[in-house]
């Protein structure tokens, strides 16, 4: 049963020298970065931080050198990613581009698109967002209604995207929309590179989440013109292009480290004198974390070998979301300090922040229900 086999990462995958360099950089850069900011995890935004990281060669690490990358392995990139997340560094400005949009452009883009955009991603200058969900198309991506109609010199886009994270600050969107009719539910879809700073007849408005924060947006395309060279990859191949991004999107350390700031706060409180029951709970948490990390590193190894481990990635994301969503419950079962939004006590503030964040973890990047359906089909259910 190959679905349950996660081959160990190759020997030497630990890259200890690189890890120590990243730790030293983070200790310096984030010296005064408070726990409540770290709790934002990969939702934290700082163009300045992303640029500094890129100056060290830690953005676009796996991209070829001719496009400003560093030709390093997916496993070296993994070390940098997990160190950033464990420290709660503000990485979202480059995260999406580095994780999936850059690799997508490199795989499917024209030479001109690669030259124009990829080096700027590797320089930490570009922030990407993903235009996938719509008001009537969430988990059911094939129900996408936004449509691109071919006109002279390009396309006219009409439709609405929602839950578009950081569209209000991003430079580019990878837009997923319909370009034709097809008998196949998955046919007739395409992807476009939308320059958000220069495109007209497009409006971006905030959707405030339950924590009162502005990450999401609604993006309305109203007869918006995109030039021909905005098409990314083959017309009509959007579905398979999106599917090939998923293994990158679903298997990384951000799928189980989103609550890590709360874990560090909790352990800080328990360190002095923990009861046996508290020790056991921390031991259970450690076991889960060690195993998830090994599974996620295994997928990085498979990606590095050019395989498509999308089923294994779905398993990592499903288990990872359960883990990171369980951390507030665990904290509450071990410590009796109430959650206080914005509280002076860092544990109380981080608990409050994390409690309000966790419901989204099994929604973003594919809901739990979608992932389990994918896994079940992978098991050979007829």
């Amino acid at each position, binding site marked *: 049963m190959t679905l349950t086999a996660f081959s160990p990462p190759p020997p030497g995958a630990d890259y200890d020298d690189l890890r120590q360099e990243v730790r030293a950089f983070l200790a310096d850069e984030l010296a005064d970065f408070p726990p409540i900011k770290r709790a934002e995890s990969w939702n934290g935004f700082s163009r300045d931080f992303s640029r500094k990281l890129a100056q060290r060669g830690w953005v676009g690490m796996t991209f070829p050198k001719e496009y400003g990358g560093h030709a390093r392995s997916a496993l070296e990139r993994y070390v940098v990613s*997990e160190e950033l997340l464990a420290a709660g560094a503000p990485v979202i400005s480059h995260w999406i581009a580095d994780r999936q949009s850059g690799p997508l452009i490199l795989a499917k883009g024209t030479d001109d698109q690669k030259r124009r955009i990829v080096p700027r991603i590797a320089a930490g200058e570009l922030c990407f967002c993903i235009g996938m969900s719509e008001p009537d198309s969430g988990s059911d991506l094939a129900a996408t209604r936004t449509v691109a109609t071919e006109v002279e010199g390009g396309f006219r886009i009409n439709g609405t995207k929602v839950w578009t994270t950081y569209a209000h600050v991003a430079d580019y969107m990878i837009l997923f929309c319909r370009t034709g009719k097809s008998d196949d539910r998955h046919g007739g879809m395409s992807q476009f590179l939308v320059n958000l700073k220069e495109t007209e007849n497009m409006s971006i408005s905030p959707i405030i989440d339950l924590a009162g924060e502005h990450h999401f947006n609604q993006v309305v395309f109203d007869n918006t013109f995109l030039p021909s060279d905005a098409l990314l990859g083959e017309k009509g191949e959007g579905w398979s292009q999106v599917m090939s991004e998923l293994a990158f999107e679903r298997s990384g350390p951000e799928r189980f480290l989103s609550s890590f700031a709360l874990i560090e706060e909790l352990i800080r409180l328990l360190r002095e004198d*923990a009861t046996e029951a508290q020790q056991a709970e921390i*031991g259970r948490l450690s076991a889960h974390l*060690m195993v998830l990390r090994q599974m996620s590193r295994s997928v990085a190894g498979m990606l590095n070998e050019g395989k498509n481990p999308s089923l*294994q990635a779905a398993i990592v994301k499903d288990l990872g979301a359960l883990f990171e969503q369980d951390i507030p419950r665990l904290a509450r079962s071990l410590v009796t300090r109430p959650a206080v939004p914005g509280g002076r006590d860092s544990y109380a503030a981080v608990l409050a922040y994390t409690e309000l964040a966790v419901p989204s973890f099994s929604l973003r990047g594919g809901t739990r229900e979608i992932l389990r359906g994918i896994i079940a089909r992978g098991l050979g*259910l007829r």
Partner: protein
Amino acid sequence: MESMIHDMAERLFRDHVTHRMREDAASGQCPEALWTQIEEAGLTMALVPEDAGGFGVPPAEALGLVRIAGAHGLPLPLAETLIANAVLAAANMALPGGRLTIAEGEALRLERRGKKIHASGHLTLVPFARWANRIVTIGVLDGADHVLSLPVKDLIVDPAQDLAGMPRDDIELDHTLTETDAPPLPRPVGGMRGLGALIRSLATTGAMETILEMSVQYANDRVQFGRPIGRFQAIQHNLATMAGETAASRTAAEMAAGSYDTPAFALAVAAAKARAGEAAEKVGALAHQIHGAIGYTQEHALHHFTKRIWGWRDEFGTELDWTRELGRAALSSPHDTFWHFITDSAAKGTQA
């Protein structure tokens, strides 16, 4: 992983381990003929280093045999014999051949009496003791691990069994040994509990892979409300949960197997036994839920596997034993942060 010994074991067990054999074993009958074939194939020597008579496969591959045996519900002490032979070889002791087993030696008292060593205490729940020639255990004398190889014929064995009906026997020890019968280990292996936990984690993984396969098959075959029950989302999600738990258990067990004989083993095996035990609880429950009433019968094969994984949770340390140990290590670690503890626990496993 392509492996000749795995293929060999897979074929041997597929052809010979039957529902009937597992039934007979649970009522006390040792499948002697199959053991002879296992030994003739050399499988019991797989974890022994080449210079001690093994055939030089990496430890992780040799230990893969335990997962395969678990997947077939093999009612014989192959896993125990693999470990026993490896420990005997590590102590430069003779490898006696035949069925061997291992016992936790934590409750064992060793003391010097002149030139002899006296061993006393209870060995409890010793797997397959009454079917074995020797029990190999590790006790502490003068602060150092010593290996004992005890001939079963000289011991009084009080028979008991685990949930699956496999022999788990109690032994009262009051025995005088020569120094050559209880030599020190040149390099400590951390006692028999960790090694026992390793094989139980691997076997649990294998058994869960079979349980998952049986459950997928059943969900495809069983028709209710006019369609296979696997078409219902509730069933699909339970199967997906089982797959995730099984994959986590396999990753954990293989991480421990991969760190065998390295400084990372102590923490890796703690994580493996705890994670596999937790998975066993979920996977067993969901498999029975999917199988409905037929899976709850003696006649159906499912119980041989679910009872094994439930029983193995209680051997060589429960989840509570191992999570406490891991938690103590995490909370008392000298590292600056918990994260450093986690990354370091794996980095120490890199084999030179």
